[in-house]
């Protein structure tokens, strides 16, 4: 009887460039992904694990740049006390022959690229049953063979695969879906899955590790990996979530009402303190209703805090403006300016107009309010 410890990770997507982020953030995000390799190695050491199982999508594309894959190989090789077991995923399938040929050519002994669906004894009495993707859409369940695959009775059986156990909305028609009960049908002690970028437990022996460094607001928080301990064959594995990500991704909704003090409301939802917000990537979705002055105040409050964050995106399309006569009075109590304000207000409230036209009129009114306020100052 022996205990086997390893790190389960996936979806590093090295080479992703984050073109949808501002220039100044992109470099940091790219760098953080590369740094995930060292973080994973550290997590392995902390967990006293000598193996890291990468469940697909080490690279973001089948043709990453030379620098990306070389530096990845070098970084993994540098952690030479740890074995890396890598299967290609849908983003970097075996169809990327050129990539994998070069990768293999450069890889040190501790970095193992798996290109066939056959059992490998990765450690004493530990059999790895991998399912590398031969191409982007294999059109079949690549774990099927594991059912028929026999390994020594005393061996721990670990499956390693990439793909959905439910249809995540990908382009396949379900033929590629890995049965959620694959661990039991194939007698696996643990099935390490990749493709889903957040941590997900499918069953007590089946997990998605998520990406070690988050890459979108869909999966908030920091990236992580799973530290898995299998006490013996057929023992229920212990699975521990270990944070590895540098960036903390936060998508927050703020519901506003005209009565609220915008600054207080903002402070209540904005995470972290000024000191640690540099590694926060923040998306704030404002909803509800506000009056013109409060909305101005909210904008000012956001401008005040937004630069604390590594990235701050403020989405106010769902925030509507409630306009009272007093607000219009603040623009002008009479005269032409008031006429203009009234006309824009009418445009914003005109139910016969298109939503786009109303939004433009409302925004124009807010702008007029801002201009009038600036004048007062």
């Amino acid at each position: 009887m022996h205990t086997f410890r390893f790190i389960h990770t996936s979806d590093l997507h090295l080479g992703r460039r984050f073109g949808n982020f501002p220039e100044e953030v992109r470099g940091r995000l790219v760098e953080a992904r590369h740094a995930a390799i060292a973080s994973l190695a550290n997590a392995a050491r902390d967990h006293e694990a000598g193996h890291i199982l990468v469940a697909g999508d080490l690279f973001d594309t089948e043709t990453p740049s030379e620098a990306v894959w070389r530096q990845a190989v070098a970084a993994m090789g540098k952690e030479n006390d740890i074995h890396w077991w890598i299967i290609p995923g849908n983003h970097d399938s075996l169809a990327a022959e050129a990539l994998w040929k070069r990768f293999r050519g450069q890889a040190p002994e501790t970095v193992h690229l798996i290109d066939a669906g056959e059992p490998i004894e990765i450690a004493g009495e530990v059999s790895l049953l991998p399912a590398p993707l031969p191409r982007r859409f294999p059109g079949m369940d690549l774990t099927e063979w594991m059912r028929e695959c026999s390994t020594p009775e005393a061996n721990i059986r670990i499956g390693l695969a990439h793909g959905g156990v439910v249809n995540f909305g990908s382009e396949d028609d379900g033929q590629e879906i890995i049965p959620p009960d694959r661990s039991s049908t194939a007698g696996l002690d643990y099935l390490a899955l990749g493709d889903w970028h957040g941590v997900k437990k499918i069953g007590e022996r089946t997990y998605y590790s998520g990406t070690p460094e988050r890459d979108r607001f869909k999966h908030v928080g920091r990236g992580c990996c799973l530290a898995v301990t299998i006490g013996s064959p057929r023992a229920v594995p212990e699975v521990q979530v270990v944070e590895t990500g540098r960036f903390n991704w936060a998508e927050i909704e703020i519901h506003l009402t005209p009565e609220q003090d915008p600054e207080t409301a903002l402070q209540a939802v904005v995470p972290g303190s000024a000191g640690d917000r540099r590694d926060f990537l923040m998306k704030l979705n404002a909803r509800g209703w506000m009056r013109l002055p409060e909305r101005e105040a909210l904008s000012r409050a956001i401008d005040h805090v937004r630069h604390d964050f590594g990235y701050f995106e403020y989405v106010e399309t769902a925030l509507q403006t409630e306009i009272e006569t007093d607000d219009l009075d603040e623009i002008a109590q009479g005269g032409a300016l008031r006429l203009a304000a009234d006309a824009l207000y009418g445009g914003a409230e005109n139910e016969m107009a298109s939503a786009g036209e109303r939004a433009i009129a409302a925004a124009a009114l807010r702008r007029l309010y801002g201009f009038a306020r600036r004048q007062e100052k």
Partner: protein
Amino acid sequence: MKLRKIRLNNVRRFTDPVEISGIASGLNVLAAPNENGKSTIFDALHTLFFKGHRSWDKEVSSLAPHAGGDPEVGLELELGGQVFKVEKRWAKSRKGEARVFRDGSLLKQGDDAEDWLSAALKSPKDGGPAGLLWVRQGILGLENDDASLTARRDLLSSVAGEVEAMTGGRRMETARRLCSEELERYLTKSGKPKTGGPLKEAEELVADLGTKHDELSAKASRLRAEIDRRNGVRRELAAIEDPEDDRERKERLQSAEAAFSEAQRHAETLEKEIESEKSRFHEVGRAQDKLKVQGEAITEAKQARDLLAGQVSIHEERKLARRDAETEHADAARRFEETEKALVFATETLRHILQAKSAASAAERRAELTQRLARAEGLRQKVETAKAAADIEIDTKTLQSLEELDAQIRTLKHLRASEAASVTMHYDEGISGCVVINDAALADGIRFPVPGGAAIDIAGVGRLVVETPTGSGETDIEDAERALADRLHSMRLQDIAMARESGGKRQGAEAQLRDAKAALAAEAPDGIDALRKQIAALPEEVANADELPDPAEAEQAERDAKAARDTVILNLEKARERLSYAKSEEARAAAAVEAAEARVTRSRNILDNLEELEAEIEILRQQLPALEAALEEAGSKRKEVERTAPDLDAATAALERARSVVERADRDRQELRLELQRLDTAIDLYSGEAVDEELADVATRLEQARDKLAEIEFEVAVLQRLDSALEAARAAARDRYVEPVLSELVPLIRLFWPEAELHLDADNVLPTALIRAGTEEDFDVLSGGTKEQIALLVRLAFARMLAKSGDAAPIILDDAIVYTDDDRIERMFDTLTREARDQQIIVFTCRQKAFRDLGGRSLSIAPARPAMASID
């Protein structure tokens, strides 16, 4: 709002505190000489209202006295029934003060005090117009000048300020300016995206990234296609290189090669048998040919020989026949000559006989014709004589014309005589003949006409001359007589009687001529020459005619001779034909001989060796059956080999196909390996270019750029919407404003110029033209006094309008009436007094005397206590 007290300290010349107090609700007049400080008070009030206490700009600093010190301005005012005191002090350090007191207690200070003051200047209803109207000394203020300090304080700016208040004021201007500034970042003046601006940059970025994305997509597609192709090539190569397939291909080739060798061997055997059969066949053929050819040659030679003999014999016969024909022909020719001569003789004889006969019958005729010729000659002579005789006499026509002329004379004379005077002598008995007229005695009782007058000699008495005037009838008679005489003379005739005689002679001669011609025609109807020819044509007489034979005999002899000759001609023709035929037959026979000789010559060799040849043929004929039997045997052998031989073509085709399969596999393998190498290289190249990574990056950047562009487009739409809303509101406000001002202005204008009208600019509500008595005068050409009055009236109209709108604004005039003459100034005073019923008016003037008649409360500048917050 109404002003009650004004207080200044440290303001220009007023280094000590001064004040103007007791300002009434209606009309107030501060009349003082120049340099008395009126404009200083005006400026100080303006600064109090419109400059913040922290300001130290040009306007504020201009208030500071030369000696230094912080200017202070205080004001007591009444607003909404309450009295407030406002104090402001400005400092260069910008640490001035502003305070508002009510009922002696501090109400507001600092910014709050400013806000209060600002609010006090606003009309509660309209939210804009300043509470004061300023009319600056000596400036008409109607020029649309810049916003300098002076201009702002002049009449224009005070009104413009009101206009602006209605049209949005400075806030409107600021909002529009900010909006325009923002828009200008994005768009050019013509509304197109500005080069270097965010909109243009965003559009360009989207376009650039779109292009890049398309290029990379295409590249990525090529990469995918190359990878797919490589997979295909690999599959094909694997199939070709499958060892089992390779072994099968080789076995198939070996078996095909063996089958081919076997078929080839059989083919060679068959070839030999065919050759052998051919050889036999040729032997038989040769023998048969020889038999045939040689036999035929011998037959030919024999026939030629026989034919020649026959032809020679025929030729001899033909020769004989030709000679006979020649003889016959010569006889016929001789006979022809003989009969021809006989015919000529008979014909000649007959001609002589006929000639003699004819000459005999012509002798009588000649005699007759000769006589007729002589007669005819005589008659012709007669004709000529008669013709000559007739020709010398006058003809009937001429005579007739002469007769007519004579008759005319006579008629004229008769007429003359019947018309002319006449004398008739009636002698007394006994007396007669003693009266002679024209030498003839006048008969008794006879009327004697005297047309041309007359000389009557009366014997013993004398001569009586009767004269008659010469008339026209006389002349006509003379003319006629002269004409007659001339005609007669031309014909050598003496008178008409001779003419008549000549006419008679002519008629006689012509009758003779007619007779002679008739006789001549009877003798020689065709003329004398024809008669002579007739005579000449008669045959001459023949000598010895009597000796000639009988004509009938001669004719018979000629007929016989002709018949004999015709018979001979027929014989001659026949002989000629026979000769011709015999000649051609002989020639044909000669040619046949020649041809037969040629045939014989050709067969000469055979004829020379005829016997040997015939013997040879006989031997060959005996050998032929054996040769034919050998041929048949060879054929049977060949057929047997053919029957048992495999199909060489099929074996060849099978071998070729097997070889082709192997070769193709080799070729395909080579090509596929090359293709694979190419694909590996291409894919490696693409992979090295990080196409997918680039594409993914560009796709996300493109998405972001599109979002950004949409944001900017929204921002531009918002600004444009705001800009148009501001412009529309401003235009609408102006429209609303001009009418009320005009309605207030019209009654004021008519106080000065009844029936006059004033035009205002719709944009800035300033006067543009004055219309008096139907004549439009441009404002610029009006006199200084008129301009000044209009300017003042326009301000008063504004004031009235503002007063009606809720809060009357004090009107401050600083030497505003300078150019106005005495007559008009009276009316202006009336107007001001009238306006002062409703609102406060403060007039500063240096024209103390002129303004004495204005009335109203008289104000003065008086020293005051120094401390602030002490206006009471």
